[in-house]
C-alpha cells in the first residue's frame, strides 16, 4: 500500500493541472479531495454534476423554492411529477410521496397526482391521477401548464390535452400546497426556470414548491461540502489565486478531451452506485484511481482499492428523506480497506514531504 501511495504522490506532485473527477464518495472523502485539489491547484468535479450545475446556475440567477421530502409527503395536496427520471431513479417514489399516514396539512383537497411528459407508469392505487402527455415535447407541456396556471393563453393542438392542462392549472391555483417534482439532470434549464416562475406565481396566494431529485453518488453531499469549504460548488478550479467556478470550463470530460488537465484522480467508492468513468479516461493521461470496485485502468495508472462508503465504513452522505447530510452506519464494516479520505490525506502528506525535501 505504501509504495502505491508513494507512486500516486509522485504522479500528482508533477501534475500541472489535475482534475478530481467521479467523486462518488462520502463527505469526508469530498473534503479530502477538496483539500488535495487546493494543494495542487486542480479542479474538483462530480460524475453527476450536469444536473447539479443546471440547478446551480438557475439558483444563482434567480434563487429557488425547495421543499423537503418530509414536507412534500406530509403536506402537499397536489404533486406534479415532471419527466420519466424521478420514477426511473426511484420506483418507490410515489409510494413514499403519498404515505398512508401524514401530519396535519393545509386545506381539505383530496391528494392528487399530475404526471407531465412521462411514459405511462405505475401510480398508487386509488390516487386521482391526471396524465399530461401525448406527442407534445416536455418543454412545451411545462410551458403550457405554466401559462394555464397564470391564466394566460397557450397553444396546444390536441383539444383534449389542452383541456386537461387548463383544468390542471385551475387545480394548482386552488391547491393548498402544490409541489413540482423533477430531476434537474433530465430537464433543461429553461424548463427549470418555467417551473420556478410557476411556483412564484402560485405563492402569491397559496403555497407551492419544488422537489428536485438529489443527484446520484452523493452528489449533493459533495456539492455542499465544496460550497462550505471554498464558497463555490463543484466544477471549481483552484489553479488561480482565488477559486473559480465555471460549469462549462471545469467539467471533467472537457478538461480531459481538450488536454488542459494533465492528471486525473478518479474516485468511485460508494455502495450501490457506480460512477461511469469519462470516455477517454485512463488513456493517455496519468491517473490515480480510488475505487471500491474492480477497475480497468491503464498500465501506468495507480489504482488504490478503498472501502465502499456505507458498506465498509460509516459514512456521512446526503439522505433524501431528511433533505440533508446524515450519517449511515456501515452494513458490514471492513476496517482493512482504507477510506477515500484516509488515502487522499496520506497522499497529501507524502506530497508535502516531497516538497519539503
Amino acid at each position: 500500500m505504501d509504495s502505491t501511495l508513494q507512486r500516486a504522490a509522485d504522479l500528482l506532485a508533477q501534475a500541472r493541472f489535475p482534475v478530481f473527477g467521479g467523486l462518488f464518495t462520502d463527505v469526508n472523502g469530498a473534503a479530502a479531495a477538496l483539500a488535495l485539489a487546493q494543494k495542487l491547484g486542480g479542479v474538483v468535479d462530480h460524475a453527476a454534476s450536469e444536473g447539479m450545475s443546471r440547478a446551480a446556475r438557475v439558483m444563482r440567477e434567480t434563487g429557488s423554492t425547495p421543499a423537503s421530502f418530509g414536507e412534500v409527503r406530509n403536506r402537499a395536496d397536489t404533486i406534479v411529477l415532471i419527466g420519466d427520471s424521478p420514477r426511473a431513479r426511484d420506483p418507490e417514489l410515489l409510494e413514499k410521496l403519498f404515505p398512508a399516514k401524514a401530519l396535519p396539512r393545509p386545506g381539505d383537497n383530496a391528494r392528487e397526482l399530475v404526471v407531465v411528459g412521462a411514459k405511462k407508469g405505475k401510480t398508487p392505487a386509488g390516487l386521482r391521477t391526471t396524465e399530461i402527455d401525448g406527442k407534445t415535447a416536455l418543454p412545451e407541456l411545462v410551458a403550457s401548464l405554466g401559462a394555464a396556471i397564470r391564466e394566460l393563453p397557450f397553444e396546444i393542438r390536441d383539444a383534449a390535452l389542452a383541456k386537461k392542462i387548463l383544468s390542471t392549472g385551475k387545480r394548482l391555483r386552488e391547491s393548498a400546497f402544490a409541489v413540482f417534482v423533477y430531476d434537474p439532470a433530465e430537464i433543461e434549464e429553461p424548463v427549470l426556470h418555467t417551473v420556478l416562475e410557476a411556483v412564484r406565481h402560485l405563492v402569491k396566494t397559496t403555497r407551492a414548491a419544488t422537489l428536485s431529485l438529489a443527484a446520484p453518488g452523493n452528489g449533493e453531499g459533495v456539492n455542499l461540502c465544496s460550497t462550505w469549504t471554498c464558497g463555490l460548488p463543484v466544477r471549481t478550479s483552484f489553479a488561480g489565486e482565488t477559486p473559480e467556478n465555471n460549469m462549462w470550463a471545469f467539467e471533467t470530460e472537457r478538461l480531459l478531451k481538450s488536454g488542459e488537465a494533465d492528471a486525473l484522480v478518479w474516485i468511485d467508492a460508494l455502495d450501490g452506485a457506480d460512477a461511469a468513468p469519462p470516455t477517454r479516461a485512463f488513456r493517455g493521461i496519468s491517473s490515480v484511481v480510488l475505487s471500491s470496485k474492480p477497475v480497468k485502468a491503464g498500465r501506468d495508472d495507480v489504482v488504490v482499492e478503498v472501502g465502499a462508503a456505507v458498506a465498509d465504513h460509516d459514512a456521512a452522505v446526503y439522505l433524501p428523506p431528511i433533505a440533508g447530510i446524515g450519517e449511515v452506519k456501515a452494513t458490514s464494516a471492513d476496517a482493512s480497506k482504507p477510506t477515500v479520505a484516509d488515502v487522499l490525506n496520506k497522499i497529501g502528506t507524502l506530497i508535502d514531504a516531497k516538497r519539503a525535501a
Partner: protein
Amino acid sequence: MLTQLKGGRVIDPAHNRDAVGDVYLENGRIVDAPEGREPDEVHNVSGKIVMAGAIDVHSHIAGTNVTLGRQLMPELPLMASAEGQPILPSSAAWGSYATGIRYAEMGYTTVIEPAMIPTHAIQAHKEMASIPIIDVAGLVILGNDDYTLNLLRTGNVKSDELKDYVAWTLMHSKALGLKVINAGGSEAFKFNARTFDLDEQVPEYGVTSRGIVEAMQQAIADLGVPHPPHVHTNNLGIAGNVDTAVATLEATQAHPIHLAHIQFYGYGKEGDKGFSSGAPRLMEAINKNKKATVDVGQVMFGQTVTISGDVLRQFTARAANPKKWVINQADGNGTGIVPYNYKKKSFVNALQWAIGLEIFLLAEDPWRVLFSTDHPNGALFVRYPEIFHLLMDKNERLRWFDRLPEASRQVSGLAGISRELTLSELAIITRAAPAKVLGLTDRGHLAPGAIADVAVYTDQKNKTKMFSAADLVFKSGKLVVRNGNVVDVSWGRCYHVDPGFDRQIENRVRSFYETYYGADPSWFGVTPTVSDRPDRFATIPCAS
C-alpha cells in the same frame, strides 16, 4: 511553557480590572504570577491593551442555511464593501476556512452558530469542524417542529415529555442551547399564514407563540441548561413591532430568556412614513426585565444576504436586492435567504442603523445587551471594528450621522446621545457578558484558571484600525496571530450540553420519524467522529 504578557493595560471587567499589569499563560490556561520562576517567553506589551479573546454570541457561520446562502450568492464577498471599498477578496472568503482566519485576526476566539437544524446537525458540525482556530458551539432550533407542537397541543401539555424531548434534541445534535425562531410562525406559514403574532394560535395545534416560548423556558430551566432559550420573536422587521418585543419581554419574566438581534424589533410606527425608532421604549422594557439578555443585531450599510429560519418573515420580505431569493419549506422551521443592500440614503435603513446604536448606548446594564450584527443579516462580521468605533467615538458617530437622509436624522435620537463606550464596556459586551450568558465560565475573562484565549491590541484613536488587526492573539495559550496575521492555524473545540433524559423518549422519537419521514433518527445523531480530531467535543455541565 510559561508565557508572560508584560506590562500591558489589562482590561478584565469580570474582575473589575483595568490596570497596567502582567498576564501569565501556561498549559493553555491563565495562571497566577509564578513566584521564583522566570517565564520561558516574554511578550512586551507595554502601551498595548490586553483583553480576553472575544466571544460572538450569535453569528451564522455554519450549517444548511448558511450554505444555501452561499449557493444563492457566491458573489457576496465581492459585493460587500465598506464606504464603497470592497472588503473581501473572493468567494472563498465566505467559506469555513476564511471565516476562522478572519475572526482570529480580529481577536475572536469563540463563536456561536445560533441556528442548527436538528435533522441537519451533522452538516453544521462538519462545517464548524472545518473552521480553524476558534472554538464554537451550536444552538439547535425547536418550536416549529411537529413533535413539539403535538406535545403542546391545546390541553395536551405533557411537560415532562417536552423536557425529555428538548434534552434528547440537545444531546442528539450536540448543541449548547436551544433556539426558538418565530415560535409557531413557521408552522402557521405551512398553513398559508402570512403574519403571526404572540397570541395567535398555530393551525391544527391550537398552541400560541407565547405558549411555546413559555414551555421552552420551563423545559430549559428544569433541565438546568446554562444558556436560556435564545429567542427570535414574532414580527421581525415590521414597523410597530416594538409592541411585540415589549409584550414578549413582559410575558417571559418567570425564567431567563435571551432575545436575539433586538434591533430588528426596535421599530415604532410614528411619523409621516409610519416608521420610527422604538429604541427608547424597548430599552425601558429591557432595563426592567432583569432576567432578559439581548444581542443587538446592528445594521451596517452595504451588501449582505439575510439568512433566517423565520421563513414567514423572509417570504413577506422577498423583495430582494439583487433580485433573487430562496424560500426553503423544510421540516421544522424552513429557511428564507434574501439578499439585501442596506443603503445609507434609505430612510428606513438609516434609521435601523441608528436604532441599533441607540440600543447599545441606552443600555443601563451592558452585561445584558450583547454585541452582534446577526452576521450576515445586519452586517458581515468583518464590519465589527467599524461598529466598535461608532460606539466608542461620538465624533465618528456624528460624522456618519450627518450623512444620513434628513428625514431619518429628524426622527432619530442618536445625535443627542453623548455616551462613548469605554474599553471595559466593550470588553463586557464582546467578552465577559457573552461568556456569562452562554455558561462558558472558563472564558471571557483573565482570572487564573481561565482558558488562555487572549487578544492584544494597539490602543489608538481609530478604533476601526485598532480592532481590525490584533497585535497578538493566543488561542488556548498558543500564539495564533501576530501583527494582524495568522501565524499558526490551530483547531478549536466544540462545546455542548448533555442534560440527560428518560430513555423512553428515544423510542417515541424513532417511531415519529419512521412514520412521518421514513427516516431513522440515528442518521442525524452527531457523534464525536463527525470530526477527525479526537478531543473536538467538550461538555458544559447542567445545573440539575
